[in-house]
């Protein structure tokens, strides 16, 4: 089903998130919507799916002008949206999630709904236990559930907002196959992303948005350099990796055993040398996170020893790790890394961990101002952490790291960041590395793992399935290992 947006304006107060956007997508088309973070892609899609009310402009579905005041209105016209964080009810069962919002008689017929869910799931090769609470599903599975639900409700335009964030490589491959199949049946698919490669892989046509306005539309394939230039208004250099000689071991882990409610890791050994970068690959929940937690002192190891910078840290707490120069930047930047509600100045004051009782706010603000400039953070000393975009939150976190780190642990260092911010983050990390910091990072981005690691440990089901040399491995090999296949 085709649709058209004409001169869409969406203003939030003085901010013009969309400033006269035109977009037209035909029936059966796989259309990419490309732009860096904050370009206005999500806002535009929320206007189309009834979440936001447009300030002005016109929406046409199959040539007919329509008014979309609520998501329910949009759904009535066959427009469904899959949000970046799938809008499911985590404690509710898969089946209840499927049912809520569907029309039908007052008395819920769960058996029939379960049958329809199973039929739909089978068509796309998905597999659900209808009685599992949704919180036990991976992000990828939650997406699959939402897609099925939208199809069930009769969606003929499917909008996906950054759907590949937080899902595994095999799940991404499956998602793309599903989208191609749907498009072949006449579904219009809008794929919102800031990842060039994914848009190139999936879409037939792409619209590029910058600062709330369309800056170009291209048929794919099309030279990547051209798209990058449209996105950023200039080409971004991706720096070459300097060769750094490895020094003595900075982090020595032996026989580590650690567990939480969902995963457990036993007998984990690792030695990281000065200036070495170790990538941790694997499906979400395969054990990478709890290992990082243990290595940073956030989670107590049940067995094994951890040494960093020549000190035995096994028995110490988080502060001991900090003192030894071990720091961890978690994936939940705002949830775990920063304090929502506090300003950048307050963050820097906290991070300085000074012993003085009184705070000299004037000099603190001045210093914060300098740090903000040094780290290219788009914000002021008075901005609060949650008002920053994802990229700027990561810049702030990096700015707060202490100097002369011995070991830096990171989880999804560039998740949700646009190319420019991601490149900057790695520039900073590589500088640290030249100073001798050992880096261990977990990522779901295979290209990132291959590009920046020296060695990659692939986690599967709580143990290290394989260790590969990043220089000789490939996306293909990694993808198979992550799925648990050792030999092909």
């Amino acid at each position, binding site marked *: 089903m085709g649709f058209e947006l004409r001169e869409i304006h969406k203003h939030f107060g003085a901010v013009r998130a969309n400033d006269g956007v035109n977009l037209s997508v035909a029936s059966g088309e796989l259309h990419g919507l490309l732009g860096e973070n904050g370009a206005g892609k999500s806002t535009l899609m929320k206007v189309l799916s009834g979440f936001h009310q447009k300030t002005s402009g016109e929406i046409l579905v199959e040539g007919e002008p329509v008014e979309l005041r609520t*998501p329910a209105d949009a759904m009535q016209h066959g427009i469904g949206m899959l949000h970046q964080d799938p809008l499911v009810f985590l404690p509710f069962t898969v089946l209840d999630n499927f049912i809520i919002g569907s029309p*039908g008689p007052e008395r819920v017929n769960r058996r029939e709904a379960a049958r329809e869910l199973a039929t739909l799931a089978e068509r796309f090769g998905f597999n659900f236990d209808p009685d*599992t609470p949704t919180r036990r599903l991976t992000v990828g599975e939650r997406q699959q559930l939402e897609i099925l639900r939208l199809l069930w409700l009769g969606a003929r335009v499917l909008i996906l907002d950054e759907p590949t964030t937080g899902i595994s490589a095999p799940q991404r491959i499956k998602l793309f196959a599903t989208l191609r199949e749907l498009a072949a049946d006449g579904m219009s698919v809008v794929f919102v992303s800031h990842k060039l490669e994914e848009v190139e892989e999936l879409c037939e046509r792409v619209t590029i948005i910058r600062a709330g306005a369309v800056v170009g539309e291209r048929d794919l394939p099309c030279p990547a350099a051209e798209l990058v230039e449209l996105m950023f208004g200039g080409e971004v250099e991706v720096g070459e990796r300097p060769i750094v000689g490895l020094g003595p071991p900075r982090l020595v882990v032996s026989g580590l055993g650690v567990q939480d409610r969902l995963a457990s890791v036993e007998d984990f050994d690792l030695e990281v040398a000065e200036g070495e970068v170790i990538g941790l690959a694997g499906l979400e929940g395969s054990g990478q996170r709890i290992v990082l937690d243990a290595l940073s002192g956030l989670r107590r190891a049940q067995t094994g020893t951890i040494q960093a910078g020549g000190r035995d840290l096994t028995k110490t707490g988080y502060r001991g790790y900090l003192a030894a120069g071990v720091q961890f930047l978690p994936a939940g930047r705002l949830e775990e890394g920063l304090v929502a509600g506090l300003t950048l100045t307050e963050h820097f004051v906290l991070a300085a961990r000074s012993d003085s009782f009184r705070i000299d706010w004037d000099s603190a603000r001045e210093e914060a101002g300098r740090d903000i400039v040094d780290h290219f953070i788009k914000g002021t000393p008075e901005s609060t952490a949650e008002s920053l975009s994802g990229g700027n939150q990561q810049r702030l976190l990096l700015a707060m790291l202490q100097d002369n780190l011995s070991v830096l642990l990171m989880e999804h260092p560039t998740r949700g960041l646009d190319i420019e911010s991601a490149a900057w983050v790695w520039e900073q990390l590589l500088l640290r590395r030249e100073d001798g910091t050992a880096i261990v990072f977990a990522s779901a981005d295979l290209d990132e793992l291959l590009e920046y690691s020296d060695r990659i440990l692939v986690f599967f089901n709580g143990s290290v399935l394989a260790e590969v040399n990043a220089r000789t491995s490939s996306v293909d090999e990694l993808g198979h290992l992550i799925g648990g296949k050792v030999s092909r």
Partner: protein
Amino acid sequence: MEATLASILAASTPLIFIVIGETITEKAGVINLSLDGTVLLSAMVGFAGAYESGSVIVGFAAAALVSALAALLVAYSSIALRLNQVAVGFVLFQLTGEMSAFLGDPYVRVPGPTVTYRPIPLLEDIPFVGKVFFQHDLVVYGSIVLIFVTYWFMFRTRRGLKLQAVGERPEAAHSRGVPVNRLRYLYAAGGGALVGMGGAAYSLGAKIGWSEGHTTGLGWIALAIVIFGGWHPYRAAFGVYLFGALQFSAIKLQDVFPDLTQVLGTLPFPIMIFTLVLVYSDQVRSLTDRYPALRGILGSDPPSAIGTRFDVD
């Protein structure tokens, strides 16, 4: 034995209305902390209404109305005025409590109408069961029906799923076409009305008459039982009856062990805390994740969006 169970059942009736009512309100994401004051005011209004009109039904209706208004006020100040539900609830608790003392002054220790004893023919003759369950008044029967109807509504109907959705993740409910704030008003008022009927059930049935501070403390206990009950009607009702049984034994054992009375009266509270520790433990959680059948008994997820506001656009 029958007589004991029957009196526990009768004495627990008001608390059933209050706890089920608040469970519904909280399920929709609105927390009404004014409960203790609201129950007082509705007990007083219920008594006064019945006394002035001579009709118990008018008393119940008046109490339900007053209490629904209080709950609506909490919802309104959150949704429309963007105030904090906890703060508004506390202020309203004070206000309604004071109002009950002030307005109820003419009715203190005045004899008034009560709900009439109405055993159910035939059923009351069943041995044991008849005596325990079918020799009461309509309010007691109503409270038992309420438990089952609420369960059925919440988990078996489309509206019930929407009610849960609104309190769990309003933006997801909104995306599915559920009118979030309208339902919050509706269930705040509906739950509030049940709370009010619970208040009237005191002054017209379980603890007849009105005096200042007639039901003091019960609202707080109700709030605790809602949590103990894991926002599930059956478990909430179990909490109420457990509380009632312990209270009853405390009174009965007073003569036998005069020294132990104090301890028995407070026993429900450590039991509740212990249960909470148990159901929130990782072991129990992973158990309920794996076995859906256990979820009704042990599940304890609070509505995630409780006490929060939802704005469209």
